[in-house]
Structures are given as structure tokens and as C-alpha cells.
């Protein structure tokens, strides 16, 4: 059984290689077959493996293929499969497969069809490598590979320069995070001489008990995670990443890549546990991001940007859970979030498609009767997002808030998380109402495209009953001490979503004037621009660099060289004046020389 572990990442990678090299010549059908087929294959394989794992529950590692053995460092291609990677595998291949099916129809007819599937498969392969890596260097390879694919896919419609800029911005901002991760790797090499994940964590617990190495490494790992998962302060790239096709946003910027940071912290929880202060920082970062993103989502006009900010806020929840120590709750929320966020994005894609690529909410409305199926999907998605009872979101978010209260109760982060729940409910309701009620503006074409229905339906089921999927995380994370939670707190957690909904309905019905004034207010505008982080970074980093670049295009280091050339040319000019051909001038030269010589000698 374990021999097949290697095939899971290999299948998508091979198919992406084939698609990228000769994709242009293959027909659309063959490309779809290859693209979707490879992900289907790895989905089946991982399904078997998960089933097998659930039966025995033993961690599995494959053969170590030697990659690099320099004097101080041994690195090998090796895969590691345990409970955590089982969950991640399930999410990636499962949701990935559905999204591949969806995009087969969504992208049909696009001239870069083969290239699209090539990149998508490359992404899935890289993500699987990241999740299954047994060695930090292999993880880093997957980590950067995923970043590369997000760059390629955001800039897929390359004719539009804005897409290119967004792609480049995404890659550069995540690259800043990657550097933090790389530094962490360098410290591990210096301290332990190896990058093998298990041994590193093991030795860290033995060797770093007292020292503050664990503080620094944990901080750096957090930096890497923050970069990739678009948390504060590196979250500015995700809203712009919506420039890519919708299935890309669904797969990469909702379900899989952005959760890589969460996976990294969960995988290296051994190191984080050694640095409690960093755990609090993770919680704080999560809570802050959660609240800020939720507020921003409240005032967005673009449909996909609402979903983007909501993703940032939901991942904020996961970081908050990790920071609070509720690792299994975080992973549980990760899985459920993948389901309903993918559902929301794909449904949004369908709406956009039927509204002829219209993404602005202000020009949408009253679609309930014309797009019933999308309305249904949105309803389920928004309900799960708002964590209403009986949806998967309810169980995972409440689990986080409950367990976090136990370990971390009463802190600012917890209160922010609680308030966030209310705001989340508010903006998901606003999204639903704006889309499907109010007066209709553009005329949609019918939405019941057959090939899109199947994945959407499946995702609806998962969004509703996803919480029932068992999570084999027992072996990975230590079980939490069950602390009793006072009934009032329990009640508050339950009421929060309803509070958001009620205020939303009231505002929709009666506050029309207030809503108008509010969306033009200065605060709303700042929230809409992502709390001004973009302007801050632009002013702080981008403009000075551009100015410096323009200033020094001619390379200041060349100045001294040109000065020497100018000086010798001047020297030549002055000296050649002395050669004016007159004999008496030469005799005077000799006399002057003689005087010079005599003074030199007699001094």
C-alpha cells in the first residue's frame, strides 16, 4: 500500500509536464481527460490510503531517494503520511477534483486551455509534495512551486497588464514570507545539520528547552506561514489575486494554497509549543486579521473581493485556533472552510458567467427567480460561512471558539473572534441579499449548465454534512484537557450569528438611506481598501524603490571611471599645449626643468 504514496504527487506532476510540453497539439477532450484524470487518480489513491490509515492508524514513510549530500547536510526525497497529511490529502484531492471538473466546463473554449490545465496540475502536484514532504527542503520546494503556480495562474489572461501586475505582486509578497521560512531552515541546518522534519522536531524538544532558538525559529516559521496564507501583515496580495480565473481563486486562494501556512504551523507544532509567546502572537495575528478582513468584506463592491476578504478572515480563525492551542479544531475548520468556500467561489463563477463577466455587486440584484440553483448554492454557502446551526461551518467555528475559550478565554483575541463571528454573519447575509433580492439590473442567461451542476451539488452536500467526516488527528495532536465552559459563554457563541443576521435584515429593510450614507463614508472607503495597508506599503517600499531605480539607471559606480577618463583627457589637452613647436619654448622648458632638478637635489 505504501508504495503508492509516491504516485499521488507524481501523477499530477507527470500530466502537467505532458500538458505543458505538447498540450498545444492535443485536442480539448484529451487535455481534459489528462488533466482531470490525473487528479482523479491521485484522489482515488489517497482515498484508499486514508481508508487504510483509518483502519490501522500507523504513520507511513516512503523510501528515501538521495537528493543532496554535501559535507554538512544530507537531504533526500522522502514522503511522510500521517493523520494530518491524510486530512490535507483528502481536502486537496477531493476539492481539487471537483474544481477540475468545474473548470473543464468553465474554461472550455479558452485558447490557453491546455496551458491552464498544465498549470493547475502542476499546482496540485506541488501542493501534494508540500503536504507529504518528509524533509523541510522538499517542503520548501513544494512551497515555492505552489507560489510559482499561483503567479502563473493569476497572470493566466496575460493580455491584461493589470493581471500581470497582480501576479507579480502575489509572488513578491509571498517571496518575502518564503525568505523567513528559508532563514528558519538555515538555523535548523546550523543547529542540527539535517532538515528531516521528524528529527528536527525531536531534537528541538531535547536541545532547545531553555534557549530562545525556538522563539526565533517559531517566529520565522510564522513569518513564512503569514506570507503564504495572506495573514496580517502580508495579506495585501490576496484581494488582487482575484484577477485570475474563478476556478483558480476557488482552488488556490480558498481551498488549498492559503491553508499551507496553517499546515506548516500544525506540522511544526512541536517547535511552537516550545515558544508560548509566539503561540499568543499567532492567536493575536489570527484574531486581528479575522476582524479586519471581516470588516473589509462588509464594504466590498466586487463579488470575488468579498469572498477573498472572507477567506482571509476564515484563515484568521484557523490561526487564532492554532495560537490558542486548539490544533485539531483548526484543521477541522480548515476542511469545512475548504468545502463551503469552494462552493461559494464556484457558484460565484457561475453567476459571473451567466451575467456575462459582470463582477460588480451594485449592478447585480434580484436574481432569485432567474438563477434558482445558484441561489440555492449561495444560500447553503452563506449559511455555512455564517456558521448557522446544522451546517458544517457551525460545528467547526463553535469548536474553535469553545476550545479556545478553555485554553485562552477572556483574552482580547477571543473577544475579537467572537465579534468576528457576528460580522461574518452580517457580510454573508449582505452578499446574499445584494445578489438575489433588490431590483434586477443586468439580464442573466440561464444557469443550469449540466457540467457545472454536478460539482456544485456535491459541494453543497459537503458544505452541509462535511462536519460528519471523521478526522484521524488523534495520533498527531495531544488531546485537549476538557474544561467546562460556563453556559453564558456557550449561549453567547450560539447567539452571535443570529445577532448578525437580525441586524442585516433590519438594515436591508429599513436602513436604505443609512446604508447609502455608510458606504460612501470615509471609514467604509478605508475598509474597502483593505484598511490602507496597500497605500502604506506602496508609499513605504514600492515608490522609494522605483524612485531609486529611476535615479540610478546609469549606475553611479560608473562615475569614478568616467572621471578618470575625463581627467586623463584634460591632462592630455594641457600637456599638448606645451608642445607648440617653438624652440625658445623648449629651451625655457629645459631651464625650468634644470631649476626643478636643482631644487629637488639641494633641498
Amino acid at each position: 500500500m505504501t508504495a503508492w504514496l509516491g504516485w499521488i504527487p507524481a501523477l499530477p506532476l507527470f500530466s502537467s509536464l505532458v500538458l505543458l510540453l505538447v498540450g498545444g497539439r492535443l485536442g480539448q477532450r484529451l487535455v481534459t481527460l489528462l488533466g482531470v484524470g490525473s487528479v482523479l487518480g491521485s484522489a482515488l489513491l489517497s482515498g484508499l490510503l486514508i481508508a487504510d490509515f483509518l483502519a490501522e492508524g500507523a504513520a507511513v514513510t516512503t523510501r528515501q531517494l538521495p537528493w543532496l549530500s554535501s559535507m554538512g547536510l544530507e537531504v533526500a526525497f522522502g514522503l511522510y503520511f500521517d493523520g494530518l497529511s491524510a486530512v490535507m490529502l483528502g481536502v486537496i484531492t477531493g476539492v481539487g477534483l471537483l474544481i477540475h471538473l468545474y473548470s473543464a466546463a468553465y474554461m472550455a473554449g479558452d485558447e490557453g486551455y491546455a496551458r491552464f490545465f498544465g498549470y493547475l496540475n502542476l499546482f496540485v502536484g506541488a501542493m501534494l509534495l508540500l503536504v507529504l514532504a518528509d524533509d523541510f527542503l522538499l517542503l520548501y520546494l513544494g512551497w515555492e512551486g505552489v507560489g510559482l503556480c499561483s503567479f502563473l495562474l493569476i497572470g493566466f489572461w496575460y493580455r491584461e497588464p493589470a493581471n500581470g501586475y497582480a501576479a507579480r505582486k502575489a509572488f513578491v509578497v509571498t517571496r518575502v514570507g518564503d525568505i523567513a521560512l528559508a532563514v528558519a531552515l538555515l538555523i535548523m541546518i546550523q543547529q542540527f545539520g539535517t532538515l528531516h522534519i521528524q528529527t528536527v522536531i525531536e531534537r528541538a524538544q531535547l536541545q532547545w528547552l531553555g534557549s530562545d532558538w525556538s522563539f526565533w525559529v517559531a517566529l520565522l516559521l510564522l513569518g513564512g506561514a503569514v506570507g503564504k496564507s495572506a495573514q496580517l501583515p502580508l495579506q495585501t496580495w490576496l484581494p488582487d489575486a482575484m484577477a485570475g480565473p474563478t476556478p483558480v481563486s476557488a482552488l488556490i486562494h480558498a481551498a488549498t494554497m492559503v491553508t499551507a501556512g496553517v499546515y506548516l504551523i500544525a506540522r511544526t507544532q512541536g517547535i511552537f509549543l516550545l515558544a508560548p509567546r509566539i503561540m499568543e502572537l499567532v492567536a493575536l495575528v489570527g484574531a486581528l486579521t479575522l476582524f479586519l478582513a471581516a470588516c473589509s468584506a462588509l464594504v466590498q463592491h466586487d463579488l470575488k473581493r468579498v469572498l477573498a476578504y472572507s477567506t482571509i478572515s476564515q484563515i484568521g480563525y484557523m490561526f487564532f485556533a492554532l495560537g490558542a492551542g486548539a490544533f485539531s479544531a483548526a484543521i477541522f475548520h480548515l476542511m469545512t472552510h475548504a468545502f463551503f468556500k469552494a462552493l461559494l467561489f464556484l457558484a460565484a463563477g457561475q453567476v459571473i458567467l451567466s451575467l456575462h463577466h459582470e463582477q460588480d455587486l451594485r449592478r447585480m440584484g434580484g436574481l432569485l427567480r432567474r438563477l434558482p440553483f445558484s441561489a440555492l448554492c449561495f444560500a447553503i454557502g452563506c449559511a455555512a460561512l455564517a456558521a448557522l446551526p446544522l451546517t458544517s461551518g457551525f460545528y467547526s467555528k463553535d469548536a474553535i471558539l469553545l476550545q479556545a475559550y478553555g485554553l485562552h478565554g477572556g483574552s482580547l483575541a477571543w473577544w475579537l473572534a467572537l465579534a468576528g463571528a457576528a460580522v461574518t454573519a452580517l457580510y454573508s447575509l449582505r452578499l446574499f441579499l445584494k445578489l438575489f433580492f433588490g431590483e434586477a439590473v443586468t439580464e442573466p442567461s440561464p444557469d443550469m449548465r449540466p457540467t457545472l451542476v454536478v460539482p456544485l451539488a456535491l459541494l453543497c452536500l459537503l458544505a452541509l454534512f462535511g462536519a460528519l467526516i471523521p478526522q484521524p488527528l488523534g495520533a498527531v495532536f495531544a488531546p485537549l484537557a476538557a474544561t467546562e465552559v460556563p453556559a453564558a459563554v456557550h449561549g453567547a457563541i450560539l447567539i452571535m450569528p443570529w445577532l448578525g443576521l437580525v441586524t442585516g435584515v433590519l438594515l436591508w429593510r429599513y436602513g436604505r438611506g443609512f446604508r447609502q450614507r455608510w458606504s460612501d463614508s470615509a471609514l467604509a472607503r478605508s475598509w474597502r481598501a483593505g484598511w490602507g495597508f496597500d497605500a502604506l506599503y506602496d508609499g513605504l517600499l514600492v515608490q522609494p524603490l522605483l524612485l531609486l531605480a529611476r535615479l540610478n539607471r546609469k549606475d553611479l559606480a560608473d562615475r569614478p571611471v568616467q572621471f578618470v577618463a575625463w581627467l586623463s583627457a584634460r591632462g592630455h589637452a594641457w600637456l599638448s599645449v606645451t608642445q607648440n613647436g617653438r624652440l625658445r619654448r623648449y629651451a625655457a622648458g629645459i631651464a625650468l626643468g634644470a631649476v626643478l632638478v636643482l631644487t629637488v637635489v639641494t633641498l
Partner: protein
Amino acid sequence: MESQGLLIPIEHGLLFAAALFCIGLAGVLTRRNLLFMLMSLELMLNAAAFVFVLAGAVHGNADGQVMFILILTLAAAEVALALALVVQLYRRRRSLDIDSLDGMRG
């Protein structure tokens, strides 16, 4: 080295020769006519020859005077050649102004 048979101290002789030398040099520098330059040239050579004779007298051996005669022959040879060239110059330029000869410069 005290002068044995000399009546006047050496410094006077040296000063005289140096003065003569400088006059000759000044002559070469200032005069524009070629002949005068040749004359001042002779002056410089004779100044040097004078010091040789003085040194010969001081050390009491004849080397000084031998050198004096050699210098005379040299001066004669150079003047002979110089005058040949002066004639050529005069035939072409009808003037002995040395500054007219500045064809080559730069």
C-alpha cells in the same frame, strides 16, 4: 681642499663661471636671431670649459686643460654644422628668426 698655488679662492672662480653660464642660457632663451643664439651657446660651453681649467689648476694636473681643448673642438664642430643649417634656413626664409620654425606642434 685648500688651494695650494691659487691666488684667488675657488668660490670666486665658480661664481664667475656660473654667472657666465647663466648669461649664456639667458641669451639662448631671449634672443630671436639664430646667430646670437649660437654665440650665447658658445658662451655656455666656455663657462663649462673655464671650470675645467680652474679644477685642473686646483688639482695641479693637466686633465682640465685637455678637457678644455676637447670642448673647443666640440664647439667648433657644432658651430660648423649649425652655420650650414643657418645658410639653408636663410635661403628658404630670408630671415634668421628662430620662431618662424614652428611647423611641427601638437
